[in-house]
Structures are given as C-alpha cells and as structure tokens.
C-alpha cells in the first residue's frame, strides 16, 4: 500500500550541501552534490529553511511554516506543501525518509 503523499516525511539537504543566494524575487540555490544551479521563488527557500535538519511530513511542515508565515488559514495548505515537497524531491533538494 502506498502512503498518502501528505504522510511522506522528507528531510532537506544538510545546510552545507546547498549554497543559497537570494537575489531579488528569485533565489539561487547551488546544489553541491549535483553541481546544478536552481533558480527558485517563494515558498522554496522558506520551506528549506523551516525544515532545518528535521524529517517532516507536509502537515508538520505546514504547522511550522504557519508560525512564521500567514498561510491564510488554508485547509489545503498541507496538500499544497506536499506537492512542493514532491517537486523538491525530484530536484534532489529534499529526500523522502523511509520508515
């Protein structure tokens, strides 16, 4: 049985693995392991910062983000964040944590 996307826990790449340079509306992220430069907008830098070194699922991350950002009381915040986490996992910037 496949876990619901919102239940998958992810861990961000350790802080030393990424070089993050905010420019203007865009932020540059250099991923040392792959040598790839990513150009991202919000909420990606915010998500990576909020995750710190912890393994979190989408709901836990939504709770953590809501402490700093106004998520507008969105009921679907966890679902949206789950989508972003899945995209970040494809880029290699976060990894799904098993078990």
């Amino acid at each position, binding site marked *: 049985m496949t876990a619901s996307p919102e239940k998958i826990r992810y861990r961000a790449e350790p802080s030393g693995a990424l*070089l993050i*340079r905010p*420019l*203007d*509306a*865009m932020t*540059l992220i*250099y991923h*040392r392991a792959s*040598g790839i*430069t990513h*150009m991202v907008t919000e909420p990606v830098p915010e998500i990576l910062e909020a995750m710190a070194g912890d393994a979190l699922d989408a709901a836990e991350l939504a709770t953590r983000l809501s402490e700093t950002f106004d998520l507008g009381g969105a009921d679907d915040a966890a679902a949206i964040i789950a989508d972003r986490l899945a995209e970040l996992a494809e880029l290699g910037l976060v990894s799904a944590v098993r078990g």
Partner: protein
Amino acid sequence: MQEFRLTVGPASFRLLSEWKKPLNQMRELYAEYPAADIPDFTVRLEAVNALRRFIRPSAAINGDYMLPDAAPLPIEQGLLALEMGMNLQMALGWRRQMILHASAAERGGKALIMTGESGSGKSTLSALLGINGWRFMGDEFALIDPVNGEAVPYPRLISLKNEAITAMQDGAADIRFGPLMKATPKGDIRHMVPPADAIAQMSKRANPALILFPRFGHDPAIRDMPPSETFMRLTQASTNYVALGEQGFEALTGLVQNVPARALDYRSGEEAMELVEKLWEELA
C-alpha cells in the same frame, strides 16, 4: 606544417597550417602580440583530404578541442578558420576564468561588459569604444576571475561583420585590417587589429562596473535588469559556467550582486555611444 605561436591575454596558442597564406596573415595581424613558449592550445588547419590541398582547397579546423560537425571552410577563409579554431579552444577548454560570450572595454580602471546575441552589436561597440577614449579589452570573450571577480582582457583581433566593416573603415585612418572575406558562413567578415594600448595592456585587469545587454535596430531605450534575469542571461552567455562548478556559481552571483545591469536598445553606433557614456556616468 607551418607554425605560428602567439599569446592573447592569459591564453597562448600554437597555430599549425598546411597552407602558408593564412598563417602569414595571422603573423602580420598579430605582429605586436607576445609569442608563446608553452602553448595552452593547438589549432590545426588541415586539408579535408590529400587532393583537396590542391584542387578547390578546403580547410578543416582541428585542435585540442573540436566540434565533430564543424564544416570545412574554403582556404581563402583560412584566417577566419584559425580565429574560429582559437575561439573553440577557449570556449570548450578554458578553465582558469569564467568565460562570458561578451565584449569588454575599460576606463578609469573599471570594466564595461557587453553581451548579447549575434548581431546585437557588442563587437562593434567595443571597437568603437576602443578608438574613443576607452581601452578595448575584447570583442568575443570577457573572462571573469572566479577568485576576485576581475575582468581579464582577451583582446584578440576584432571580428567586424557586414555594415560594421564600412563603419570602422571610415572611423579612423590608422587602423589595420585583415583581408575582406565575403560570403563566409557568418556573412562578410573583416578582422581589425585592436588599438595599440589594448595590446600593450593585455595583462591589465579591471573590476567590472557595468553590464550592458545591447540590441541593435530598435528605438533607443534603457531598461533596468534585475540580478536574477542578469544571472540567467549570463549563464546562457557562458561557455564554461557548468564546468567551473561552485567556483562559477560564486563568480557569477558575485558579479550580478555587485554590478548594475541594463538592457540597451539603439539604432546606430553613434546613438549607442551616447547612451553608454550616459549610463557609465550615472552607474559606474
């Protein structure tokens, strides 16, 4: 094979050719450039096959770095073939600095970097600046030192195309030109020897102070370019950004964070020069 060695800025080349003429043209045009003891790159002009050396001769460009599908050029364009071969070695093989496909000029110890598509006029503008009080630093590659961000000159011969040829021929009396090569794959081409100060000071670096994205053939306009757009365009203009890895990332982010950038539309060289001077006054 005939041989000629030369140094352009930080890079040195050994040029080999089965034909004397293109090498003699290079010797004449690069007469003031230093020779090279241990060349970084070798470029060879070779006959496509043995008979082709004599019958409608055609030269294949070979070297340390090669494009497998590069079309051979007629030998009358041998000078262009050697220049293309040198560009190819730099674009594919150079690692000491970040390469931007851009022209550059210096004034007051500060460098102006101009980049854009082919036909944007970046080469002609750098040549015009070079005979109007600026030091010409290069018309093809701007080299950025990844450690300290300095622009390193690469003042190879200036490659003038089509209308720019007449514009520069009328512009100054004491300029030396190579042969006019008509109907090359890049249109009519004539090489111009950079001004004497550009060659004498080819080791003198300068800190980038303004980045311009010129575009020829549009009503005059200046547009601010945010650092993220500048970054994206410069990664596209760099031939070795990916190869330099983290060094390239640091060099390019440093450049776009510290140096203002503008898009510049213009209709004539004269108009562009006025706009460049104005922007330089305000921003550099």
